[in-house]
C-alpha cells in the first residue's frame, strides 16, 4: 500500500514492539484469570490480533499449532455477520468446518472500532478441558464422525451490544461436562480479548488511526521481507517429502502425507494434494489446521524471532485437495489433528526442504501418545481421571547439535509441562517405579536425536479401571534427516498378572486395567541429523559415558 511511506521507520518500530506487547499482555490476563489447569498451567491457548478481513497482525508465542489458524476463524465470523457487527459484541467459534481447527479449541472475538467501522479483531483461542461429545476430554479415538466429538459452534454472537445472550450461554454450558469451569474460562477469554481491544484503542489514540493503519501495513511488509530474505538463500528446486501416520484406528494403515515443495527465488509453493485420501478416524485435518501446520513448518525454518503475522506467510502458496487426510470433507472427525496429522504435515514439508536448507532443517521431534486412566481411588473411594503427560519423547537434532532429551512433540516444542511424580502419587493411586531417559532411542546422526523416556508405574486400585489412548508413532519413529536415522518409535505395554504382556495401541477406548497392573511406557526418541559416520569420536564416547547410548555400536543401523 502506498500510504506506508507516510510513516517513518521509527514509528513503525515502536508500533511493532507495542503490538507484540499487547498480545503478550492479553496472554498474561488470561493466565491470571482462567480456571482450568490446561489453561493456567499448560498454557494451551493463544492470543492475537487480526484485521477485519482476517489478516494476522500479531500473535503471542504460546502454542505453535495455533499460529496460522486464526485468520480462517476471523474470516468465517466476518462473512457470517458482515454488516451486523457492533461495539460490545463478542463472537464465538469452534467448528472446524467453519474456520475452527478442532472442537476443543474455542475462539472468542472482540471487534475493535474506528468510529463506527469495525477494523480489527482481538482474539483469544483456548483449549477447553471438555467440549461435550461421547468421551470426557474430547479425544475420542472411537469417533467416526464429528458429532461424536463434541458440541459444534458455528459463528455465534454471545454478547450483543454489550449484553450477554443468556439463553445462548446456557445452551452451550449445558452441553459441556464442567459448566462452571467452562464459564470461568470463557470469562477469562473474553476479558483477555477486551484487554487487546483497550490497548489497541489506546495505540490508535496516541498515534492516530491513519498512522496506525499505515504502520501496521509496514509491520506486515517488514515480516514479509525478513521471511523472503531467508528463503532467498535456499537452493531453488522442486523437493518432495513425506510423513507417515501409523494408522487411524479404524483400519487405515501407513497413511502418507506428501508434500511437493517448489522453491523459486523467495517464494515457496507447497503442494499437499498427493496426500492419502481422508480416513475414518480422528487423524483427519480440518483445512485451517492444515494451514496452521504449514505455517508452523515455515516458522521453524525461518529466524525464530521473526514476528508471526500475515506478512510472514505471504511468500508461501499452499495447494491441497479436499477429501484428503489434510483437508477432510465436512462431517469427518478431526480432534487429534492438532497433533496428528499436523506433525506429519510439518514432517513432509521439512523433510522436503532439508536438502535446500540443511542448516535450518531439524530432524523429527517425537509423536504424541497419551493415556488417560479412569477408576476409583481405594484410599478415598473417589473417582479419578488421570492424564499422562510424563515420559515425553525426544527432540530432533539439528545443525546446532543433539536433540533435547524428553522434551515432547514437534507441534508443542517444549511447551507442555508434566506434573511432579510425588504430587501424582499423593493424588492418584499410582506408584512410579522408574522414570528415566531411554537409552539408544535417539536417532543416530552427526548430531543425535534426543532420547525418549521410560516410565514404569503400577495402578494400585481395588476395582477395575479403564484406559483410553490417543496418539501415533508405535511403528513410525520421529524422522531422521540428511542421512540421520529415525528415532525409535514408542512402545507401551501393559503387564497384568497371569496374562502375557499386552501391547497398547495408540487409539484405544476402554482398555481394562486390573488391580496391580503395571504399565511399561517407552516413548520414542528424536530423529538424527546428518551422516552418523561424521559424528565425532568424543561425542560418541560421551554418549556412552552418559548412558544415552548403551555401548559402542550396540545399536544396529535403523534400530
Amino acid at each position, binding site marked *: 500500500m502506498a500510504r506506508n511511506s507516510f510513516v517513518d*521507520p521509527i514509528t513503525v518500530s515502536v508500533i511493532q514492539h507495542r503490538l507484540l506487547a499487547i498480545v*503478550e*499482555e492479553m496472554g498474561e490476563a488470561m493466565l491470571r484469570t482462567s480456571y482450568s489447569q490446561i489453561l493456567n498451567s499448560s498454557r494451551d491457548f493463544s492470543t492475537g490480533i487480526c484485521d477485519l478481513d482476517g489478516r494476522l497482525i500479531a500473535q503471542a508465542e504460546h502454542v505453535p499449532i495455533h499460529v496460522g489458524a486464526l485468520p480462517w476463524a476471523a474470516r468465517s465470523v466476518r462473512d457470517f455477520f458482515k454488516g451486523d457487527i457492533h461495539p460490545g459484541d463478542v463472537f464465538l467459534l469452534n467448528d472446524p468446518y467453519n474456520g475452527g481447527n478442532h472442537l476443543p479449541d474455542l475462539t472468542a472475538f472482540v471487534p475493535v472500532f474506528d468510529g463506527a467501522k469495525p477494523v480489527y479483531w482481538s482474539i483469544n483461542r483456548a483449549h477447553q478441558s471438555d467440549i461435550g461429545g461421547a468421551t470426557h476430554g474430547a479425544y475420542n479415538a472411537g469417533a467416526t464422525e464429528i458429532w461424536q466429538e463434541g458440541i459444534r459452534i458455528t459463528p455465534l454472537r454471545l454478547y450483543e451490544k454489550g449484553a450477554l445472550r443468556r439463553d445462548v450461554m446456557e445452551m452451550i454450558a449445558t452441553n459441556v461436562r464442567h459448566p462452571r469451569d467452562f464459564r470461568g474460562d470463557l470469562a477469562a477469554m473474553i476479558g483477555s480479548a477486551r484487554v487487546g481491544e483497550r490497548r489497541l484503542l489506546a495505540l490508535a489514540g496516541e498515534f492516530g488511526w491513519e498512522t496506525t493503519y499505515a504502520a501496521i501495513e509496514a509491520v506486515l511488509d517488514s515480516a514479509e521481507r525478513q521471511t523472503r530474505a531467508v528463503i532467498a538463500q535456499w537452493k531453488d528446486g522442486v523437493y518432495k517429502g513425506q510423513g507417515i501416520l501409523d494408522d487411524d484406528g479404524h483400519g487405515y494403515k501407513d497413511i502418507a502425507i506428501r508434500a511437493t515443495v517448489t522453491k523459486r527465488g523467495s517464494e515457496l509453493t507447497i503442494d499437499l494434494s498427493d496426500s492419502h485420501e481422508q480416513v475414518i478416524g480422528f487423524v483427519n485435518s480440518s483445512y485451517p489446521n492444515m494451514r496452521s501446520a504449514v505455517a508452523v513448518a515455515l516458522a521453524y525454518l525461518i529466524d525464530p524471532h521473526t514476528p508471526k503475522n500475515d506478512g510472514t506467510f505471504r511468500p508461501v502458496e499452499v495447494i491441497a485437495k479436499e477429501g484428503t487426510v489434510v483437508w477432510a470433507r465436512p462431517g469427518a472427525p478431526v480432534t487429534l489433528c492438532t497433533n496428528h496429522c499436523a506433525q506429519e504435515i510439518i514432517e513432509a514439508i521439512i523433510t522436503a526442504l532439508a536438502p535446500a536448507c540443511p542448516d535450518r532443517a531439524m530432524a523429527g521431534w517425537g509423536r504424541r501418545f497419551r493415556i488417560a486412566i479412569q477408576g476409583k481411588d481405594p484410599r478415598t473411594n473417589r473417582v479419578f481421571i488421570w492424564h499422562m503427560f510424563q515420559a515425553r519423547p525426544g527432540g530432533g537434532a539439528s545443525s546446532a547439535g543433539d536433540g533435547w532429551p524428553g522434551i515432547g512433540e514437534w507441534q508443542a*516444542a517444549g*511447551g507442555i509441562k508434566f506434573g511432579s*511424580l*510425588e504430587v501424582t502419587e499423593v493424588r492418584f493411586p499410582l506408584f512410579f517405579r522408574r522414570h*528415566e531417559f531411554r537409552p539408544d532411542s535417539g536417532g543416530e546422526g552427526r548430531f543425535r536425536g534426543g532420547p525418549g523416556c521410560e516410565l514404569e508405574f503400577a495402578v494400585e486400585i481395588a476395582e477395575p479401571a479403564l484406559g483410553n489412548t490417543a496418539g501415533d508413532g508405535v511403528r513410525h519413529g520421529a524422522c531422521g534427516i540428511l542421512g540421520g536415522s529415525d528415532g525409535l518409535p514408542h512402545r507401551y505395554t501393559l503387564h497384568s498378572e497371569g496374562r502375557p504382556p499386552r501391547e497398547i495401541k495408540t487409539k484405544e477406548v476402554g482398555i481394562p486395567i486390573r488391580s496391580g497392573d503395571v504399565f511399561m511406557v517407552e516413548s520414542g526418541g528424536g530423529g538424527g541429523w546428518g551422516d552418523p559416520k561424521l559424528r565425532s569420536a568424543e561425542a560418541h564416547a560421551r554418549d556412552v559415558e552418559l548412558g544415552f547410548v548403551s555401548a559402542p555400536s550396540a545399536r544396529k543401523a535403523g534400530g
Partner: protein
Amino acid sequence: MYRIGIDVGGTFTDLVAVDPTGRATLAKTASTPRDPSEGVLDGLARLADTLRLPLSQLLAETERIVHGTTVATNALLEQKGAKVGLLTTEGHRDVLEMREGLKDDRYNLRVPPPEPLVPRQRRLGVRERLRADGRVETPLDEASLRNAIAALKRAEVEAVAVCYLHAYRDPRHERATAEMLARELPGAYVSLSSDVFPQIKEFERVSTLVVNAYVGPALSRYLHRLAGRLAEAGYRGPVLIIQSHGGVAPVAEAARLAAGGCLSGPAGGVAGSRYAAKLLGTGNLIPFDMGGTSTDICLIVEGEASLAVDRKVGGHRVALNSLDIVSLGAGGGSIGRVDAGGILHVGPESAGADPGPACYRKGGTAPTVTDANLVLGYLDARHFLGGRSLLDTAAAEAALDRLAATLGVTRISAAEGVHRVVNTNMAEGIRVVSVRRGVDPRRFALLSFGGAAGLHVTDVARQLDLGRVIVPRVAAVLSAWGMLATDLRFEVARTHIGDAGRLDGAATKRLFEELEADAVARLRASFDGPLRVLRSVDMRYGEQIFEINVALDDVDWSAADPLPQIVERFHRRHEELYTYAMRDQEAVLVNARAVAVGVLPDLPQEPTLEDRGRIAPVGERRIYLGDWQSVPVYDFDRVSPGHAIAGPAIVESAMTTVLLRPHDKARITPHGWLDIAVPVRAVD
C-alpha cells in the same frame, strides 16, 4: 557505635558507615573478584581514613556489618561452582535434566539442550524408596549406597547432593546417607533435600538442592575467610549476609543455605526501596534499576517487596522464597540494530561495560543507548560521571550514522529512535510484570536507580500513564541504608499435603508449633533481640498445579481446629489475586511455613538538608526533544528542599543525570531527592 553496609558489585565495592546521629560516610573501591574479601578490607580502610580513625578502632566501634555478595551468583552464572555428585532414588536419576518437559524460546528448534549442573554420569541411583504417605517401601540398601559413594569418590567430587523421593516426609534415608558420606567422603560439602528444601515436587527440590551444592563450597570458603579477616582486623560483632528473600542471615546459616544467596546482590537495591517507601510515606513503588546490560524491576506493595518461588538464576530453578525481581534486557549498553525487515530493535544484546558504548572509546563501535543519549544532548561529554571520564561524541555520532543509514533516516532520528524503542521495551516490560502480578502500574511511583535511569524514567512513566517519579540523590547510599535496616529472617517450611477438609486440625497445629520452635531456635543461635513469628501456608484448589502463599497472621490458634479459618483465608487470597474463589471446590494444603524475624532496632533517619534558598541553574545545554532547544542545567548536589524545578531541564550530579521533560515538575524532598510529577491521563 557504627553500622556498616557493604555491597560488593561486579566492578565496585560500595561501603557506607552510619554513625549514631544518622550521618552516613561513603567509600568506594574497586572490587577484587578473585577474593572479594580483599576489596572489602581495602574499602573498610578507606572508610576509616575518611572518618580519621584507625581501622581497628572503627571496627571496634562497629556493632553490625551487613554484606551483600555476588559470590554465589557469579559461581552459577560463570559456571565456576563445585564438582557435584547427586544421589537419587534408583530409577529416578534424570529428574534434574527432564526439567518438567519445558523449553524456553518456543520457535527456536535449532538450539542444543542446556548442560545440567550435574552431568548424568555423576547422578547415581540408590536402592531405597519411601511412599507418598511416608511408609518405607524399600529400605535403604547399604551395598547400593556404598557403590554409589565409591563411584563419586572415583569421580573426585567436592560436593554431594542427596535427593530421594518423598524425603520431605521423612529424612531418615537421607540422614543415613549423610552419615555414610561423612565416613567415606570426609571434607565433601553435603546437602540433603530434607534439610535444604523439605518440600514436595521433586524437580524443584532437586534443582534447588543441586544449586546449593554447586555454589555452597565457594560461598562457604569466602564467607569464612571474610569473617576471619574481619576478626583479625578487630571486629567483634555479627556479619550478616543479605539473602535472596530480602532478610539477612549470619555467616554459618548463609553458608549452609547457599542457594539462598543467589540473589543477594540485587536484594540490596530492594532493601533500599523499602527504606525509601518508609522515608517518603508512600507504599507503592516500582524500583527501576537501570544498569549497563539490564534493568531490574520489582514491586513494592504497601511498603513490602513481594516474594516468589519460581525464580531462575542462570537458567537454573531455585525454588526458595526469593524477592520477585525481574530483569529486562535493556540498559545503557544495549545495542540498537535493524533486522532484515527494517524494524529497529534495542537489546537484549549489550556492549556492557567492556567494550562498552562507542563513546567510551574502549573498542566498542556498536550504537548503544548511551551513544544515543549523548547525540541527543542529554549527556554532557565533558562532565559524564562528574568529569571522571570523557565521552567521545564523534564516535557516538559515527555509530549512530551507521544505524541511520540502514534505517534511511537522519542521525538525530536514529538516536531518538533508539531512545524511544528502549523506553517502549522497558515500559511494556513493567506493564507485563505488573499485570502478571495482578497490579495496575498506574497506581505506583517509579523509583529511579542507577546512573542511566534518570534519562529514561520520565518517558517510561508517561508511557505507563504513571504520574510520579522519584529520584534519590545517591542510590548506593540508599541500598546500603536499606541493608542496614533489614531484619534477620529464618524460614522453615515443610510439606503437609492433603485436602484441607480431611486433614487433622490438631496435627496441623502441632506441626506449626514444631516449625515455629525450629525457626526460633535457629534465630536464637545468633540473635537475642525482640522477635516475631509469621506463619503461612501454600495452598491450591484440587485441580490446580500452582500453589499460592496465604499469610495466617490473624488466625485464632486457640481454636480446636484452625483449618476452617485457614481455608477461608485461602479463598480470600485467591480472590484478591485471581478475581475469583471456588468455595465449593476442595482446597488442598501443600506446605506449612514459619518465619522467625529478628527485629533490629530502627536506624536513625538520614539527616535532612537545609533550605539553601532558590535553586539557580549552573548552565545551559542544547538537547533534542522533537527539536533542538536550550534547557537549564541544575546541580543535583546543590538543590534545596521545598523548592521546585520545572521541565524541560537537566539535573545532574557525578552519579546520575535526570531529564525533566516539558511539563514535568520536580519538587525537592527534605533529603534532597527529586519527587517528579509527570502529566498523564487520569486513572479510570
